[in-house]
């Protein structure tokens, strides 16, 4: 009988059901747009300018990179309080590597093009080792993640302080600081090329997913719905590039050195920043982490362990090693976030990344990651980071005092989780 039921006419579906979009994604994007529109009204249109959107994007990158890793940590019912401190240790190591250790011990000339890349490799390695060591204490020694990373929160920032004698390290290498945001961008032309390639790859991926489903005889959404979503995705990607490209380099910056922007003279030279390298890094991280979450065994085991640790263990999953891998991943992402953060400042300072752990956890949680484990998405965490950053810079633009800003952000965090719980109760999901 089961073979014949598929031939029966499908029940009538609503518009949203046909689209098969995640309602929670829709809700988060809606909340983000609402925040933007409110601030845009309050600031008389200054919030949604290309310039502010550009700044908002580069301010979000560091926290968003770490938040993607925090999703995996929270999904497996752990927590990582040490990411901000870990970031500081990594930037201290990277600061020392590029300004002192490489030039003095290995005789690299300052400004040597290899300095940045060696530094980055060292930083990512240190992040992986520290994260992995914390993961080992949690997974193999059974110390609660809260305790291990609370210890890390106290220890790592001060390991950074010890490495640098508490001094601010800089100025950092010129190639390295390209990852800081406005200091390193693609420019208009290459940005369009990246946008178009990204669009083509996304559309091809959606199309091949549909082909695979029809190949197995599974129901797929109607053609018009597929087409509509493809159109929305195309507009979103290219629209984002268009907005970033609309932010042109101010005249006084062009006047400093017109040759950088491809002009002979400063007069009449119009150049756009385009996509910052740091944003490209975030996009690559987001894609890689999403693929890990949805398409690899590692991701499947992370979610299975979060849903039922005993079941995962009995299914032959090595949950201890899994914990080490997850925390090592967060370590690498903290180092990566550290590259972006210190490159943006141009220096390593002792207080870099202070309180980032709380912003990162808040971003993941606002993005729908459940502390009870098993549930969370990468895109949610990134939207969560964007919502947090928009609230903060929006309030700063409106002129809300810092203490009030924190009150609002705190209230929004609790409210977001409450809405999520109510939503899950409604739809009956766990």
């Amino acid at each position, binding site marked *: 009988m*089961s073979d014949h039921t598929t031939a029966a006419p499908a029940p009538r579906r609503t518009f949203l059901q046909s689209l098969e979009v995640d309602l929670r994604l829709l809700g988060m994007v809606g909340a983000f747009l609402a925040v933007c529109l409110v601030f845009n009204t309050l600031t008389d249109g200054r919030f949604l300018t290309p310039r502010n959107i550009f700044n908002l994007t580069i301010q979000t990158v560091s926290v968003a990179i770490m938040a993607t890793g925090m999703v995996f940590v929270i999904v497996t019912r752990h927590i990582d309080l040490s990411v901000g401190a870990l970031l500081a240790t990594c930037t201290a190591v990277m600061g020392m590597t590029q300004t002192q250790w490489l030039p003095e011990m290995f005789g690299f000339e300052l400004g040597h093009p290899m300095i940045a890349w060696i530094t980055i490799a060292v930083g990512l390695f240190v992040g992986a080792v520290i994260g992995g060591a914390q993961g080992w204490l949690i997974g193999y020694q059974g110390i609660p993640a809260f305790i291990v990373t609370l210890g890390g929160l106290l220890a790592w920032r001060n390991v950074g302080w010890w490495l640098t004698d508490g001094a601010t390290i800089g100025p950092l290498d010129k190639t390295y600081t390209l990852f800081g945001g406005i200091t390193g961008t693609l420019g208009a032309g290459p940005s369009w090329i990246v946008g178009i390639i990204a669009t083509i790859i996304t559309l091809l991926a959606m199309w091949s997913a549909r082909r695979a*489903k029809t190949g197995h005889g*599974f129901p797929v959404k109607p053609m018009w719905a597929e087409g509509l979503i493809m159109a929305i995705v195309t507009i979103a990607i290219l629209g984002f590039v268009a907005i970033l490209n609309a932010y042109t380099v101010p005249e006084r910056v062009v006047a400093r050195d017109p040759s950088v922007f491809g002009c002979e003279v400063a007069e009449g030279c119009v150049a756009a920043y385009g996509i910052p390298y740091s944003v490209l890094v975030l996009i690559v991280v987001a894609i890689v982490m999403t693929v890990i979450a949805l*398409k690899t*065994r590692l991701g*499947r085991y992370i979610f299975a362990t979060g849903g039922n640790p005993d079941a995962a263990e009995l299914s*032959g999953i090595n949950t201890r090693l899994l914990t080490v891998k997850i925390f090592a991943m967060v370590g690498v992402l903290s180092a990566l976030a550290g590259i972006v953060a210190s490159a943006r400042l141009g220096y390593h300072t002792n207080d870099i990344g202070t309180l980032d752990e709380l912003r990162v956890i808040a971003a993941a949680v606002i993005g729908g990651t459940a502390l009870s484990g098993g549930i969370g998405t990468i895109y949610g965490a990134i939207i969560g980071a964007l919502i947090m950053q928009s609230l903060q810079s929006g309030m700063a633009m409106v002129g809300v005092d810092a203490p009030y800003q924190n009150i609002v952000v705190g209230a929004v965090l609790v409210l977001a989780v409450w809405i999520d719980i109510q939503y899950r109760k409604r739809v009956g*999901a766990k």
Partner: protein
Amino acid sequence: MTTPLVEMKNVSIAFGGVRAVDDVSIELHAGEVVGLLGHNGAGKSTLIKMLSGAYKMDSGEIYIEGNKATINSPRDSRDYNIETIYQTLALADNLDAASNLFLGRELTTRFGFVNDDKMEAETRKIMARLNPNFKKLKEPVSALSGGQRQSVAIARAVYFNAKILIMDEPTAALGVHETEMVADLIKELKAQGLGIFLISHDTREMMDLCDRVSVMKNGKMVGTERVENVTEDDILSMIILGKNPNDTAT
């Protein structure tokens, strides 16, 4: 006599000072259902968990098809084609049926990514056989009824061609109709030549399904009897008194 499929010899395990399983021997042949009975805490589940790799025995030996087996983890146990359906239903509630069915043994594409479509197609196939009413393939298993969840757990054992199946109270959470379904399935699997260890509190069900029953009390084996040689009352007195009344009678 043929080589038993499973032979556990003089197996013991202690937790703290408690000897949860004390010098127990048991064997299972192909195409046979052996029932394990006893009070809560008699050591039935503990005994079986040493075979499924969840616990590591302190002493004793396990032979699979006559060869000495080393089982230190659930993965080892699977390598011997032993599948276990746990009392607590070892399912990840947040994942769908296909992900649970293939958990730990995902099908992958040639690029090494998990092949969800293929796994869903396989799940549809096996579910059509085990539980034709099963339709909720896209939803997390937390949204399923007890019987549907049980069919996912059983599908797991059946799909991977287990030779030895351990069922720890497979019908405890089920309704009448679903219990019947599981009973039919046990008979079918037995006919296919699997060896099945069945744990249950329902003596009548055990008399119906099993070829032999073993009764445990306080970690020790009271005795093993062929079901046709004993009555339900005999079994009950073995569970309660810890001895077979027929032994004293003769």
